[in-house]
């Protein structure tokens, strides 16, 4: 199924045949084409080139056009500090430097780098009609912090009216951005509001809920999907985030995924996350990346879950780690093998097979993911069933599905590492490849001769 359809299904909370995956490539896509963050984030052509490289190597179902939470702030007069190896940082807060809210105007879509990201969105839309394109906008609370600095925390308490005015303004900016992204072809508008992780649910309901709900309604009415991203430990706010009626929420590794899953699904909101950005994806190896992805996928499940890194990928994240995740996402057999090997590592209880063997018969065990859903498994089971026909009751065979705990225990007890595998009288004979019927027959004959 095409990525866009898969993402839509996940966001509609329908069961999916494969968990969709959205790598949050920001400046990392620039690194993939040998550019600095500054070169990458200042040119529409480079954005398109970098995102295309990420699409080519990471085989995603959806992808952000630009992960840069400074675009709106820049257009509103915040000074940016640019760097080679990171997205820019906001280094001035206009409302602390003499400007008032009345001085601020919702920027034209031509201001700063806004038209550049919209141009990149249009080009990517044209080139990838079947991929979910994410347009990222700065959430109103984070934008308010860019404009006012940390004074906003005090203002919330001391001057609620003024804080509401600022949130009103930031909401108008967010709607302008969302509208432009949707018009340029984005399927999903991701409202990224990491600073809300710092406030309590009561303050969230007072100063964030009405505004984010309005933005989510706006996105829905425009026919697009909304996703609410919060990086940081926002555990206390997951419930109130869901109540703003986004189609999806996305969180990072600070919050346990099962906790988020249970709250999101209870609120009929899909959810995404939360592969570990630094310890695993940036500093770990392919094996660690695969295992982390699998853990997320097993917790997330096939209803309403989108696999993604916790937040914007670090620029220097090794490409091979993300390629490993992409391979795993698209390969159910690999997932099964990894799951079984983890079970082995967990010291699962091995089976006592003394009564499993037979003095007169050859016992064949076929370890599969599940022959009804995994094609190679099905062919291998078919091949064995045909090969044993001519041996009558001299041979017995059984399929062990590692989707079940017993299958995992059998796999570990027999020392099997790959799926599917044929084992005869406890000895591993055929791995992964479906053998010709005659080869299976020959092996059975060998084992019979030992009886």
């Amino acid at each position, binding site marked *: 199924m095409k990525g866009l359809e898969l993402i839509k299904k996940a966001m509609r909370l329908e069961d999916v045949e494969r968990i969709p995956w959205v790598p949050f490539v920001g400046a990392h896509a620039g690194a993939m084409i040998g550019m600095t963050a500054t070169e990458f984030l200042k040119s529409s052509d480079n954005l398109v080139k970098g995102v295309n490289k990420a699409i080519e190597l990471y085989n995603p179902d959806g992808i952000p056009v630009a992960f840069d939470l400074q675009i709106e702030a820049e257009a509103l007069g915040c000074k940016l500090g640019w*760097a080679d190896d990171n997205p820019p940082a906001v280094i001035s807060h206009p409302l602390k430097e003499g400007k008032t809210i009345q001085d601020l105007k919702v920027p034209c879509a031509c201001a700063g780098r806004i038209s550049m990201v919209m141009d990149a969105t249009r080009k990517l839309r044209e080139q990838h009609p079947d991929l979910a394109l994410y347009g990222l906008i700065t959430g109103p609370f984070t934008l308010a912090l860019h404009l006012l600095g940390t004074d906003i925390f*005090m203002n*919330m308490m*001391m001057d609620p009216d003024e804080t509401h005015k600022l949130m009103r303004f930031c909401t108008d900016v967010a709607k302008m951005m969302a509208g432009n992204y949707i018009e340029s072809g984005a399927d999903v508008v991701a409202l990224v509001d990491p600073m809300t992780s710092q*406030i*309590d649910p009561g303050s969230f309901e007072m100063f964030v809920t009405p505004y984010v709900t309005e933005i989510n309604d706006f996105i829905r009415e425009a026919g697009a999907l909304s996703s609410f991203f919060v990086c940081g430990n926002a555990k*206390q706010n997951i419930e109130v985030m869901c109540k703003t009626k986004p189609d999806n929420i996305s969180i990072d590794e600070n919050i346990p995924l099962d906790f988020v899953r249970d709250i999101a699904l209870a609120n009929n909101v899909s959810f995404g996350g939360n592969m570990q*950005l*630094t310890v695993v994806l940036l500093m770990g190896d392919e094996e660690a990346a695969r295992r982390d992805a699998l853990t997320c996928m097993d917790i997330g499940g096939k209803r309403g879950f989108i696999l993604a890194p916790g937040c914007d990928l*670090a620029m220097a994240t090794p490409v091979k780690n993300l390629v490993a995740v992409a391979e795993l996402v698209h390969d159910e057999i690999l997932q099964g093998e990894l799951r079984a090997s983890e079970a082995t590592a967990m010291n699962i209880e091995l089976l006592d097979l003394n009564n499993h063997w037979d003095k007169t018969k050859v016992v064949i065990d076929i370890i599969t993911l599940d022959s009804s859903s995994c094609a190679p498994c099905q062919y291998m089971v078919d091949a064995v069933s045909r090969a044993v026909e001519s041996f009558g009751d001299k041979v017995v065979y059984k399929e062990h599905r590692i989707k079940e705990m017993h299958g995992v225990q059998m796999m570990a007890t027999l020392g099997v590492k790959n799926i599917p595998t044929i084992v005869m009288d406890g000895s591993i004979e055929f791995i992964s490849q479906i053998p010709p019927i005659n080869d299976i027959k020959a092996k059975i004959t060998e084992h019979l001769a030992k009886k």
Partner: protein
Amino acid sequence: MEELYKKLSDCIEFGKINKVSPYPPQMKDQDGADEITKQLLDGGASADDVLQKGLIIGMEKVGIKFRENQVFVPQVLMSAKAMDAAMKYLKPLFAASATARKGIFIIGTVEGDLHDIGKNLVAMMVEGNGYEVIDLGTDVKAEKFIEAADQNPGAVLGLSALLTTTMGNMEQITKAIKAHNANIKVCIGGAPVNEEFCVKIGADKYNPDPQGVVEFLNAMSA
């Protein structure tokens, strides 16, 4: 008198700065930390008693509530501001003794990193807990940290980083500080940093939140 101490600790706990402050709504039109501190001192209370029996008790309660996720940054900042309002009366009285401040905390975002929000939050909360804070700003080199530490013997250093790419600088700076004087205590924090990294670079403490820094400083000065 006892009742006033209790009121003062409530003002700190709930972030009531002064009578005109609209926050918290349930204490509207009541005296705040400002007025009550003055009343206590006018009534003959010692500055040390005001600190120990009122302010510190309130701040400790806030600390526990923050740790237990009952209150968050905005509420703790209000408590810190209420503490400030009281301290403005106490500071002159403490001028000659060391009780006025519990210690000195020097904070900065490491070289190459321009992000100031996390650092500012930590600075505000530490200050609100009765420490003197020297804020070196953002993009701070090792030499600047060392110079400030030398000028303030016994001060604890706090290094902040938001970016994965500046974690390397955090490591270099920590090592430079420790090479200069292994006795200087260094604590670190920021989105990409964790306990494992703290151990790896030889820093003394990783704190996931501002309250952790306060507790570390309290433990150091105890």
